[in-house]
């Protein structure tokens, strides 16, 4: 009875009920009415037709907004697909020139070079490598949209343990505290383990990059109706003006700080979460820290 709670149905319902009451009175108590009955009939017809008109008007409006929403979603999907196609074409066109550049530079390295030339070749190599990485990351993003998911039940405690074990050394070296916590009503959840591990590693990577020694991070996993994976840190935070853009490719929230990275990490996380039909939220306070929460619905195995 959802429609009963919807405020916009009240007016036609009220009018309709009034009309029906009048109709009942006309039929049952006709003889006792003091007012002339033609007035009754006029009021009755007016009320009923008003109710009808209002109801039809609302129905049309509701179905129109549904249609609009659908076409907007369709448009968004189209734009996204076009965007991915562009990325994959870009990658394709960059691959061969980059292969040539890397081979050429390595060849130069094998010839006799003086100190200065050697330095120059080294700088060019670093930059070419950076460009190669970027292109690979962009391709990975494009691939994610089409790559089949490997959906299997994954033991949550082991999953978290694996992630933490692989990260521990790096966090200790950077003097960051890494805590983890699993609160699961069920032991396993169905997802693509490698992809989700990549997403979590990327989130932890960001937490590490955008924090200072002494800061702490927490990876918390909870499974109830949905799976939530939360990565929180006490790091430098994200400026509010940057929040809407952090999921875009190549966007850097702190371009002035020389933090290494290509700006594809979070875009990749978002793509992975969306492939699992999930959602992702971020809350952040400048100077106090960031909390990213991933929500995944329960999916069925392949």
């Amino acid at each position: 009875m959802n429609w009963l709670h919807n405020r916009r149905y009240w007016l036609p319902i009220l009018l309709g009920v009034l009309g029906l009451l009048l109709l009942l009175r006309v039929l049952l108590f006709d003889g006792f009415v003091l007012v002339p009955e033609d007035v009754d009939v006029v009021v009755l017809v007016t009320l009923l037709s008003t109710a009808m008109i209002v109801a039809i008007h609302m129905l049309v409006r509701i179905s129109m907004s549904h249609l609009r929403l659908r076409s907007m979603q369709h448009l968004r999907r189209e734009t996204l697909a076009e965007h991915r196609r562009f990325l994959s074409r870009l990658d394709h066109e960059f691959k061969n020139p980059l292969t040539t550049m890397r081979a050429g530079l390595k060849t130069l390295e094998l010839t006799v070079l003086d100190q200065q030339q050697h330095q120059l070749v080294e700088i060019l190599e670093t930059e070419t490598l950076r460009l190669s990485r970027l292109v690979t990351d962009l391709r990975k993003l494009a691939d994610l949209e089409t790559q089949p998911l490997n959906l299997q039940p994954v033991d949550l405690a082991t999953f978290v343990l694996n992630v933490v074990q692989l990260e521990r050394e790096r966090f200790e070296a950077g003097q960051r505290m890494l805590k983890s916590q699993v609160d699961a009503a069920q032991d396993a959840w169905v997802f693509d383990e490698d992809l989700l591990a990549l997403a979590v590693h990327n989130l932890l990577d960001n937490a590490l990059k955008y924090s200072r020694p002494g800061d702490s991070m927490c990876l918390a996993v909870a499974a109830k109706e949905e799976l939530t994976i939360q990565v929180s840190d006490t790091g430098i935070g994200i400026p509010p003006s940057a929040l809407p853009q952090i999921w875009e490719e190549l966007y850097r929230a702190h371009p002035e700080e020389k933090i290494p990275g290509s700006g594809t990490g979070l875009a990749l996380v978002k793509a992975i979460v969306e492939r699992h039909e999930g959602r992702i939220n971020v809350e952040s306070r400048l100077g106090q820290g960031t909390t990213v929460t991933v929500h995944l619905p329960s999916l069925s195995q392949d």
Partner: protein
Amino acid sequence: MNAGNKPQILLADDEASILSTLKLFLELSGFQVITAGNGTEALDRVTHYHPDLIVLDVLMPQLDGRETLRLLRQRGDWTPVILLTQVAGTAQRIMAIDEGADDYLNKPFDPQELVVRMRAVLRRTQAGNQPLQSARRLKSHFVVLDRSARRVYLHAHEASLTPKAIALLEYLMMHPDELVTREHLLDVVWGWESGVGERVVDTRIAELRKTLGDDPTAPQFIETVPGMGYRYIAPTETVL
């Protein structure tokens, strides 16, 4: 082996700039290089020169790399081939048995890595070992990998492994005694590479070690090469 002790390499790619730079680099790295601009030309050169190894680009006009490789194998030619792939994310297909390539590299690759792969392939084939890439079943010690059924048996009992772990084991078994970097494993088994993603390889290696009962400190199968990657140290043979 051809004239002058230097291995002869056939390099096939439709990009002239890649051909000329890679040719120069490989020559300086101690190879003798002949080139081809497309698949048909490559097949002609093979009949003519009998190279020791072919480096084949996948995306070429007319006859592409995969088709060229197929035709080559069809006529019973088992010259080792390294495929330069263009499309990522196709691990299972990339390793397909009927494809019969000896190794793979994704463009843009590190030229040094190409040389490393080439030397490894040459070492393996020149030792007169059986070609592993066409085998349906591989065996080392008590481990049997059925490549077409995608199953692993330990002492004839089936082991439960994830598809990625099986693909990883397959690649390692087919490249015994070779140092393989995490980056390369990610490239050939997962189809993409990234600084962060490399940890995914470690997770799968851990899974393999646990299943095989391999102790990382005294490995019988998979050895960790600190700061470099992994090496499969068990001998691999083909079984019928």
